[in-house]
């Protein structure tokens, strides 16, 4: 899911003359612009399909919206569809996640940007970027294996399935996102503000509070909203630890805390469960599920769009007028330093701990046999077929998403007027922020049911395309905007048509950024589980590579980890799950390192992906 955070200062892109239809140039111009516009069309189409799915779903039966928002009874047998417990569940886990992640994330970001010397901060920043891209299925696995037992010990929670466990998993998952985006916002504050404040005799704490934070605040808030969007839309990691108990609401205000250590259900876990399969494709049951989808989509869209908006160009607010006491300045400064550096320990420990757990428990993955031998289900064996399946899905997705995303990026970056560009960009951001579970459900209804493909690898690959396209498009558009205006001017001064300009100026200038975007998007897609479970993957029994399209599922790493971890009794299964998780992390880390390498090499615009 790709979201822009920083827009380059030169907001309006180069405006181009309309393509001329000079003889001999016309067909090529049509080809180039056909390609570019089909990219933007794909974004609009995705949105249309998604909304179409939800709206037709709702229209196919009557949705009792009042009950959906106020009742907590969910019983398809009696056609009672109340969503309040799920809304409460979603709210509870997100609030928990934010309460845990925001203070730590912000403090760690401040420590990274304002306290650590660059030599230390740089590699740490990179590692946190890597953490932010770890697939959520891996966080889910850690949740089920580590956090759930921890919660079970902590309170009297049988098994540990609870809202609290889900909140902690989400907190762990979004902390790197919050840190990474906040560090970017802090780094964007010009050094002269710090210098001016330091030279007035302020301590570091005072400099951060009065000079740096007022400038970085909106960017840091955007980081939180992106984290919130991620937490709201996350299905699988929550699914694995929340217990999925319907109709649980706290009985009184005082019961809220107690309710946190009980199992619950969120909007996403309901949709990721078996019910969408059972509900068919019409009728009140299906309509109610679509109603839940609409609520979820609306919540996530508000968080993403608001989050992306928040960081653009608004001037910094005044520092609070409160006069601070001149007493105890130095001790206060020291305490703050310790607290902030201490906060950095947590993400650091997270990184080390996660690598440690993965290496210790997934050590099997370091054996080449594990990579190259076929699986024997839960009993052991290797994961050759799962790796092949994942690579097949990724390659197909990349093939479809690269041209579409590139085209959309070119249109946003060059063709559109400032206003249209903003609208298109917001739509792209919204697509990027869509919970993938909804993409999966829409894909399931469209491809697997309506078009009769059954479970098909191609359906899975297509469902992953909207995950990748926004990242590619936004990175490309950002790069085009950062293009020096002289280049554009020089090109047109030589009499190039706009399509020639795209081919000989824009593409050579932007391809590294575009490829970086593609790799970042694929790293995200590699770990997607929720949309694949319905559409494309099976745990066992599919051939290594499919031979057709209809009823041709594949096996893939995320599904493998998901299924094995659900069946967490057998030690072989657990070892397999950890090994697969390590392989998946290695694949994403590989994609990401390539992206970082490209970015550093060509200094592409910095873009954030959630």
């Amino acid at each position, binding site marked *: 899911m790709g979201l822009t955070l920083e827009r380059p200062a030169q907001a309006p892109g180069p405006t181009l003359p309309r393509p001329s239809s000079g003889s001999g140039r016309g067909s090529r111009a049509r080809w180039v612009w056909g390609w570019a516009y089909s990219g933007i069309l794909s974004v609009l189409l995705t949105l249309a399909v998604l909304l179409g799915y939800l709206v037709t779903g709702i229209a196919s039966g009557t949705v009792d919206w009042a009950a959906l928002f106020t009742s907590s009874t969910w019983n398809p047998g009696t056609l009672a569809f109340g969503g309040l417990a799920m809304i409460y569940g979603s709210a509870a886990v997100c609030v928990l996640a934010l309460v845990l992640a925001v203070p730590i994330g912000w403090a760690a970001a401040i420590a990274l940007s304002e306290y650590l010397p660059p030599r230390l901060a740089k590699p740490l920043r990179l590692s946190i970027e890597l953490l932010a891209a770890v697939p959520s299925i891996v966080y889910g696995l850690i949740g089920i294996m580590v956090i759930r037992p921890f919660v079970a010990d902590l309170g009297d929670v049988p098994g540990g399935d609870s809202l609290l466990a889900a909140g902690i998993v989400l907190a762990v998952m979004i902390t790197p996102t919050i840190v990474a985006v906040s560090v970017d916002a802090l780094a964007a504050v010009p050094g002269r503000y710090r*210098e*001016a*404040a330091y030279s007035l005799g*302020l301590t570091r704490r005072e400099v951060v509070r009065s000079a740096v934070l007022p400038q970085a605040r909106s960017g840091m808030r955007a980081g939180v909203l992106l984290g919130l969007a991620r937490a709201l839309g996350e299905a699988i990691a929550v699914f694995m630890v929340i217990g999925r108990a319907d109709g649980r609401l706290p009985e009184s205000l005082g019961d809220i805390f107690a309710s946190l250590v009980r199992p619950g259900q969120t909007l996403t876990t309901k949709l990721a469960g078996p019910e969408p399969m059972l509900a068919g494709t019409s009728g009140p049951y299906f309509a109610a599920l679509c109603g839940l989808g609409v609520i979820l989509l609306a919540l996530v869209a508000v968080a993403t769009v608001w989050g992306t908006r928040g960081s653009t160009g608004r001037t910094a607010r*005044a*520092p609070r007028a409160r006069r*601070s006491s*001149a007493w105890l300045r130095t001790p206060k*400064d020291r305490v703050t330093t310790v607290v902030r550096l201490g906060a950095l320990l947590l993400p650091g420990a997270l990184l080390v701990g996660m690598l440690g757990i993965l290496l210790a428990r997934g050590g099997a993955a370091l054996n080449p046999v594990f990579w190259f031998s076929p699986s024997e289900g839960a009993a052991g064996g290797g994961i050759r077929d799962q790796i092949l399946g994942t690579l097949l899905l990724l390659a197909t997705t990349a093939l479809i998403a690269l041209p579409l995303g590139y085209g959309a990026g070119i249109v946003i970056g060059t063709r559109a007027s400032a206003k249209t560009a903003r609208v298109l960009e917001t739509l792209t951001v919204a697509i990027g922020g869509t919970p993938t579970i909804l993409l999966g459900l829409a894909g399931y209804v469209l491809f697997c049911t309506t078009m009769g493909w059954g479970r098909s690898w191609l359906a899975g690959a297509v469902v992953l395309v909207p995950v990748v396209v926004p990242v590619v498009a936004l990175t490309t558009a950002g790069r085009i905007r950062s293009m020096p205006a002289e280049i554009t001017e020089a090109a047109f001064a030589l009499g190039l048509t706009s399509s020639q300009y795209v081919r000989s100026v824009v593409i050579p200038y932007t391809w590294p950024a575009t490829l970086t975007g593609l790799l970042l998007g694929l790293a995200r897609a590699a770990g997607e589980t929720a949309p694949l479970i319905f559409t494309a993957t099976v745990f066992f029994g599919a051939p290594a590579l499919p031979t057709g399209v209809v009823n041709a599922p594949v096996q893939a790493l995320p599904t493998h980890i998901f299924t094995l971890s659900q069946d967490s009794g057998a030690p072989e299964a657990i070892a397999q799950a950890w090994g697969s998780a390590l392989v998946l992390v290695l694949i994403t880390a590989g994609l990401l390192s390539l992206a970082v390498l490209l970015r550093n090499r060509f200094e592409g615009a910095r873009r954030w992906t959630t």
Partner: protein
Amino acid sequence: MDDVTTGATTTDKMVDGTVIAVRDLQILDGAKRLVGPVTFELAAGSTTGLCGPSGAGKSTVLRALVDLLPHGLRRQGEVEVLGRPVRYGKGDAHLRSTVVLVPQTPVVFGGSILDNALFGLRHLVRASRTEMHDRVEQALREAGLWSEVSGRLDTPAQTLSNGQRQRLCLARALALEPAALLLDEPTSALDERSRDTVEESVAALRGNRTVLLVSHDPAQVERLCDRTVRIDLANTCEPSPAAV
């Protein structure tokens, strides 16, 4: 740490003495010498010009004095402020409220003109609202900005012109009643008219405040300074008597 509000009294006490004494100050990047050795003294109440060609490291010297060197640069040599040797590397905020650097480009923080004028003061001093207001007013008068902003202290500081901003930065520093002011090319980012107004303000400080003024413009140094310290690219420096 000592209370920081003593800036004013110390200045008065030191009127006849030396505010800053720099001996054999060198700035190194690894083993490479970037600046120095530089030796000079700032007499209380004097305006001293620090000049030299661009790239000679004039601004770096100022930053070295207040412990704001960029990462990777080291300083060597001795610096005394108000007769006491400075121990660098401690993130010493007290030093920076005693010797205040005014950077080259005016930096205006979010908030009103008053917020900006109070920016350093409100952290350093515990005083009543009226007292603070009085100090700010005095500083703004000293920087020659009072007459232009007295009626609109609550308007955003972003509405000020560049020259006004620079004088606001000057006032912000003056409000701390520092023992010495370090001005880093205060007019180089300004157009001609604003330059004149800022020069007027700096000229008005002469005799009352201890100022070290960095400038690449010999004529400006001549106009504003009692004496000159020259840094050359040849990495040497010599104090030269200047026209008063």
